[in-house]
């Protein structure tokens, strides 16, 4: 049972071994200012403990085994599925474990995509992560479906006014980021849902950047598919989730083949298990899944009203500080409205990698580059940006270290 929700950034940070002073080698006892959370978050002790417990007291392959370790491993693995389901307010049978967001979207492109015909349309947007672009390009090659993109406004928001024009009767799927990994902008869902409903298209949300910021009530979102990764939400790498409406899961053919997803195999044909198994071929990432279960428990133990307020304050501090720097431009929303604590910026005359490198010298971990969103950067006429992204363990010191580092970068580079 998760504890009663509470929030205290200091004790939250204390749960993360890597954030302690001296944890990172070569830092001479200083602590790291980790602001690369949108790439991968850090991992709290309860997640590590669950991993270690699995490896040292419960380890076995899951399913089909009756000995005590197989029982324990299966209980822990299926228990993790149950935790994730509860966290999203859905049933266990609709939780498909994958290796990450990218794989989850590839499964949709392969399985749901298998039901599409040449000329059917898929609508994405200009701000998508490559993980929600390339699978559709590959599907377009394979099946002749057409991929269309919603434009992005100067403020970095998906131009929902364009929905009417872009979403036609041939549209079978709208696939959009719930939250942008570059701008932190949260999707304005209502018009998208309406547009999908109007033409009977399914709606896929890429939740990779949303799930690290608190529980998600999937039924309330009203989407058809939801994809996310464990490693961005305090869990190990190598685990992710595809959720889909039960009717869709039941109707879809499998994408990957192997053990565990079958009903019966002969030399000439295979019949398939029911969901979620049908979409989980081979031995699953058992330890990482158990880690994800522990991570959602940890998330459920946070008071997200307070954590969100904390994040907003830090975001404001960051935006204020950035606005004061000459030659710096924030990509995307510059206010607190409709965004989370992911902020990307470009600095006149300074390359994002150089900026990130100077920040590193200030013990600040930020990411510079295209963040797997080349079309969005092209939209803004830049090759890349520097991104700072927040998690509940960040504090004002982290933000101030960032701002101090940028001032130094301006002095050195611009």
């Amino acid at each position, binding site marked *: 049972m998760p504890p009663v929700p509470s929030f205290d950034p200091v004790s939250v940070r204390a749960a993360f071994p890597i954030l302690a002073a001296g944890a990172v080698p070569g830092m001479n006892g200083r602590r790291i200012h980790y602001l690369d959370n949108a790439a991968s978050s850090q991992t709290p002790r309860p997640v590590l403990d669950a991993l270690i417990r699995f490896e040292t007291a419960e380890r076995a392959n899951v399913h*089909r*085994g*009756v000995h005590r370790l197989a*029982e324990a491993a299966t*209980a822990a693995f299926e228990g993790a599925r149950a935790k994730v389901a509860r966290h999203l307010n859905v049933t266990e049978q609709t939780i498909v474990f994958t290796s990450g967001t990218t794989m989850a979207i590839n499964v949709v492109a392969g399985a749901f995509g298998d039901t599409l015909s040449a000329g059917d349309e898929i609508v994405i947007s200009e701000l998508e992560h490559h993980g929600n672009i390339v699978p559709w390009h590959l599907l377009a090659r394979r099946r002749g479906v057409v991929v269309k993109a919603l434009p992005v406004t100067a403020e970095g928001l998906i131009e929902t006014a364009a929905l009417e024009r872009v979403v036609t009767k041939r549209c079978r799927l709208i696939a959009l980021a719930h939250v942008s990994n570059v701008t932190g902008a949260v999707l304005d869902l209502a018009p998208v849902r309406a547009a999908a409903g109007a033409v009977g298209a399914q709606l896929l949300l890429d939740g990779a950047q949303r799930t690290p910021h608190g529980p998600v009530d999937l039924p309330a979102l009203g989407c058809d598919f939801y994809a996310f990764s464990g490693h961005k939400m305090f869990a190990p790498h190598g685990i992710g989730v595809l959720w889909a409406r039960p009717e869709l899961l039941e109707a879809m053919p499998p994408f990957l083949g192997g053990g565990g997803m*079958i*009903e*019966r195999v002969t030399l000439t044909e295979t019949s398939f298990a029911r969901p979620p198994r049908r979409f989980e071929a081979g031995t699953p990432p058992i330890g990482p899944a158990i880690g994800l279960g522990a991570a959602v428990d940890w998330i459920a133990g946070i008071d997200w009203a307070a954590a969100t307020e904390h994040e907003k304050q830090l975001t404001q501090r960051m935006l204020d500080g950035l606005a004061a720097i000459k030659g710096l431009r924030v990509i995307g929303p510059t206010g607190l409205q409709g965004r989370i604590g992911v902020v990307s910026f470009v600095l006149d005359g300074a390359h994002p990698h150089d900026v990130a490198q100077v920040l590193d010298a200030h013990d600040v971990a930020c990411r510079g580059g295209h963040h797997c969103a080349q079309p969005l950067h092209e939209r803004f006429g830049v090759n890349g940006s520097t991104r700072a992204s927040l998690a509940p363990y960040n504090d004002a010191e982290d933000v101030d270290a960032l701002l101090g580092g940028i001032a130094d970068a301006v002095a050195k580079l611009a």
Partner: protein
Amino acid sequence: MSDELYQKAITAHAKAAVGAGRLDRADSAATIDNPLCGDRVTMEVKLDRGRIAALAHEVRGCVLCRAAASVIGRHAQGLTRAEAQAIDTALRGMLGGGDPPSWPDLAAFRPVARHKSRHECVMLPFDALVKALEAAGPAAAGAGPAAKR
């Protein structure tokens, strides 16, 4: 530990195999597979005004599964669909840690509760019975008005 799983009561039920075989002319039948282990149970029933008049089962499965089918063979006579469903639900409840169902023979399966991977072995014959009765349609819904629909 799980030695208790194979206490005399269970192995005796499995050996007894009451009801094993096929019916000459069944009113309804159902087959269920456990895809995890490849086990399979077929249940056939003959009905008389919504109650089981005769029953036979074919089981390709483990001791637990065969013992459960035998217990059904022993007690199913006269059962309605609703009663079969109630037993099925109660048995699943017992495996989840609850009380045993009304058939005393089923208490022998209590140690299975601790072995989640074996729950389905016990349930398979019961689920097949319920499915066979459901497949019978209105004829199995009870002696009352439903039979007249």
